[in-house]
Structure formats: structure tokens, C-alpha cells
């Protein structure tokens, strides 16, 4: 089966702390930090969007793969914050890489699991022999309404995976999807911020689908938690994925490497894929990884990857995810954050 030949991650250097948001809304920062297990989140600068994050992540994936970008036959970006309503993000990414013009492209949307759907289609196109290499990207500059609980976590980042059939760093042994029509989180046309169903987003939505998908793929593969070196789940906050991991029987040393949310926030379509990049950065040949995403609406995609000997050769060929997460950061005050996220009503230029 096809698999990953290169991976890349990117995130903004700007951050805002939970305390900074809480003091504006008169909220209890410690309660949010404890309740969500989130300390701070990434914030995209005004010159950063889903396309720019995707490009840098994809360049890093290509650098690790060491392939001619002209051989990339498909480029799929999954996001719920595509900069254009009409005009694909993927065309720009493919053009920057030099993958055009012989390249398939479409943007994917499925709340936070659009990235893993893009990864799945990229894998299957390679498996089908339609293309030599295909890019699957999950990226977002996610929005949360001011004062809403989402504002403490909605953040920005991207993960890119170049899929191929040869020279793999991780073979995809199994995939599985688990999906129902569940209205837990949505954004109607022309609405700026998403709405959510509060506590309904937990048990009937996130936990039902993530656990359903994880159990389904473990059954399909005939594998148990102890067969895996690492696991990573969608991270709407720092608590949900740890709860899922424990319910499934995974130990802390299996899930903590991929848990980025406490310092990164929820990067929506980039969330579990970025966690996967943090694992690929340190994994050893022969190790298995379980990856399960979640997208509201609602569904989960599951993957079982097994790493090859080549992975150790390419881990240092691009910046590693935890270096980006824990490296130099610039902390914003709420006013700067509001400006960066376009939350301030401005006069129209020239009016």
C-alpha cells in the first residue's frame, strides 16, 4: 500500500496566552487552563493564511521526500478557512512547488477532518496508479467568536504529507472512516464565526466518532494499543484526546508526543495531522502509529502507519514540529491579537 514519502509542518510564531483573553472577558483563566488543558495558542499574522501555511509545510514535505516537484500529480488542501470562497488554495500551493500544470487539484472541507480526507484521497490516487506523488494537506487559521469558549483554542497551523508508492518513510497499512450526520458545530454561509452546541460537542460528537473510528480500525487491522509506539487524536482541547487515549488503553508515553494543543491550540484541519508530524519527527523504523482525526458534522478518519528504515534519514531535513512549537515566540496583547485576526471594524480605504 502507498504511504508517506515526506512530511512538513508550519505554524505562526505569534501566540496569545489564555490569561490575556480571559482578562478581556472577565473570565477565570485558571478554570479555562485547567478545563481545556491549554496554556496558549498560535495566532496568524495578517500576512499569514491557510495558503501561506500550506506552502511552507508542503515545501518541508518535499524537502524530506527529495523528489522532483514536477512529479506531484495531485495537490489537495483541507481547511475550513480557505482564503477564497471561490478559487482553490491548492492551485497556489502547487504553483509555488512547481507541480503545475499536470496536477489534479480541489479544496476539501469537512470541519476539522478536511485534512485527513485530503490525505486519504492522495493515498488512494497513488494506490490506484493515477499519480506518482500526491500531496494531502490539513491547514487552518481558525476563528472563534470573541468571548466564546472557542476563542481560547482556535489557532493556526498546517501539516503536509507527500504520498507515494516508493521510498516510503511510513507505509499506510490501514485506513477507516466513521461518519454520521451530527450537528455539533457549524457555520452558515456569510456568517463570520462558527456556532457550536456546547456540551453536545463531547459525548455524542467527538467521543462517539473518535472512539468509533479508533475501535473500527483496530478491529479491521487486528491490532491492539500495545502494537503501537504512538497514537494521535484530534485535539479540540488538551483534554479530549488524552481521555480518548486512556479509554482505548493507550499509555501516556504513546500519546504525549503528538499532543500539541496545550501550547498550540486547536488548528482545526491541521490539528491531528500536525500531531502526526511531531511523532514522525522522533519515531523509529518499524514503529506503528495510530492516527484518528475528527471533524464536526461529524466524522473521523483513521490511519495505521508503519515506519520504514528511511525515516531516520529524513527526520532532520526540515524543521521539526516541537522546535517550531517551543522555539522563539512573540506574545500578543489582546488588542494586537484582535487586529491580527481582523476583529476590529475599520473605515473602508478611500471612503
Amino acid at each position, binding site marked *: 500500500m502507498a504511504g508517506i514519502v515526506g512530511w512538513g509542518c508550519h505554524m505562526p*510564531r505569534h501566540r496569545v496566552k489564555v490569561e490575556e483573553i480571559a482578562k478581556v472577558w472577565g473570565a477565570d483563566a485558571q478554570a479555562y487552563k485547567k478545563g481545556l488543558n491549554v496554556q496558549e495558542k498560535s495566532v496568524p499574522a495578517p*500576512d*499569514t*493564511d491557510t*495558503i*501561506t501555511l500550506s506552502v511552507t509545510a508542503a515545501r518541508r514535505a518535499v524537502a524530506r521526500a527529495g523528489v522532483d516537484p514536477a512529479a506531484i500529480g495531485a495537490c489537495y488542501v483541507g481547511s475550513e478557512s480557505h482564503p*477564497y470562497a471561490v478559487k482553490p488554495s491548492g492551485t*497556489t500551493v502547487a504553483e509555488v512547488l512547481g507541480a503545475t500544470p499536470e496536477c489534479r487539484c480541489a479544496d476539501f472541507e469537512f470541519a476539522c477532518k478536511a485534512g485527513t480526507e485530503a490525505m486519504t484521497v492522495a493515498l488512494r490516487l497513488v494506490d490506484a496508479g493515477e499519480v506518482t506523488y500526491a500531496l494531502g494537506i490539513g491547514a487552518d487559521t481558525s476563528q472563534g467568536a470573541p468571548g466564546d469558549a472557542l476563542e481560547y483554542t482556535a489557532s493556526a497551523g498546517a501539516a503536509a504529507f507527500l504520498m507515494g508508492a516508493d521510498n516510503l518513510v511510513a507505509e499506510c497499512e490501514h485506513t477507516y472512516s466513521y461518519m454520521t450526520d451530527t450537528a455539533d458545530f457549524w457555520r452558515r454561509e456569510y456568517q463570520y464565526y462558527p456556532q457550536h452546541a456546547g456540551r453536545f460537542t463531547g459525548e455524542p460528537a467527538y467521543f462517539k466518532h473518535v472512539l468509533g473510528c479508533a475501535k473500527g480500525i483496530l478491529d479491521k487491522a487486528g491490532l491492539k494499543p500495545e502494537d503501537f509506539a504512538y497514537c494521535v487524536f484530534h485535539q479540540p482541547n488538551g483534554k479530549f484526546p488524552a481521555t480518548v487515549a486512556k479509554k482505548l488503553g493507550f499509555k501516556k508515553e504513546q500519546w504525549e508526543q503528538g499532543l500539541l494543543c496545550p501550547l498550540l491550540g486547536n488548528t482545526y484541519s491541521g490539528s491531528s495531522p500536525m500531531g502526526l508530524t511531531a511523532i514522525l519527527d522522533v519515531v523509529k523504523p518499524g514503529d506503528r502509529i495510530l492516527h484518528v482525526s475528527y471533524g464536526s458534522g461529524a466524522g473521523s478518519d483513521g490511519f495505521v502507519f508503519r515506519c520504514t528504515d528511511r525515516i531516520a534519514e529524513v527526520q532532520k531535513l526540515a524543521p521539526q514540529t516541537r522546535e517550531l512549537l517551543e522555539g522563539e515566540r512573540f506574545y500578543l496583547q489582546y488588542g494586537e491579537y484582535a487586529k491580527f485576526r481582523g476583529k476590529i471594524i475599520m473605515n473602508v480605504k478611500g471612503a
Partner: protein
Amino acid sequence: MPSASYTREIPQRYRLEAGKCSSCGKIYYPPRLVCVCGGRDFETVALSDTGKVVTYTIIRVGPSDFVEEVPYGLGIVEVDGGVRLMAQLVDVPLDDIKTGMPVRLEFRKIYQEGEAGIICYGHKAVPA
């Protein structure tokens, strides 16, 4: 509306493609049609995305598309291989910008043609 000219400049804006004179080897970025040596044949070469700041200034009164970004650094960057180009210097405190500072060119939004127009992308320099 400058969308058409922007689209024609995509190779240089997105992939840092320059023109290398087939006669004398001089590299031009952005590419041009005639070399100072008189040559008219150019090979397309991609510039390195790493280099150093040669000189810079701080923009405190910006042009209309950049007024919300002031103050910001604007520098001449010499990429590995010797070609020089102008780029905004971002993700760095203004006091930390120095000549000789190693930088990497990162893909960013440069400006947009109003709220309803196209978004124009290119490269900015970030600390390497």
C-alpha cells in the same frame, strides 16, 4: 485591475525564478529580456531561499496597502549565490534587525486588491 500582470509574474513571485544570461552568466531577479552584455538568451534558475540582510530601513509611514503593518522592516537581502532582492523583514523585533542577519525567504501575503479583489502572495524574509 493589476490581476493579469500579477498572474504573469507568478514564476518569480512564487518560485523565485530568475533569468541567467546564457552569454555572461549574470543572474537577473526579476528576469529581464536583455542583459547588459547584450545577450538575449536566458536560462531560468531558482534563487536560494536563504541569505543575509545587506541593508534595511524601518518604514513608519507606509504606502496605502501597508499602513496597517507599520512600523515594519524593509531590507535588501542577498540570497546565497549573490543575487539581491528587496523584501519585508518580519517575525523579528525591529530592534533585532541587523545587517548581516541570516534570513530565510518565507511565502506570505504581500497585499490584496481590496476586500473583493485577488490576494497577492510573494516572499518575506524571516530570521533563519
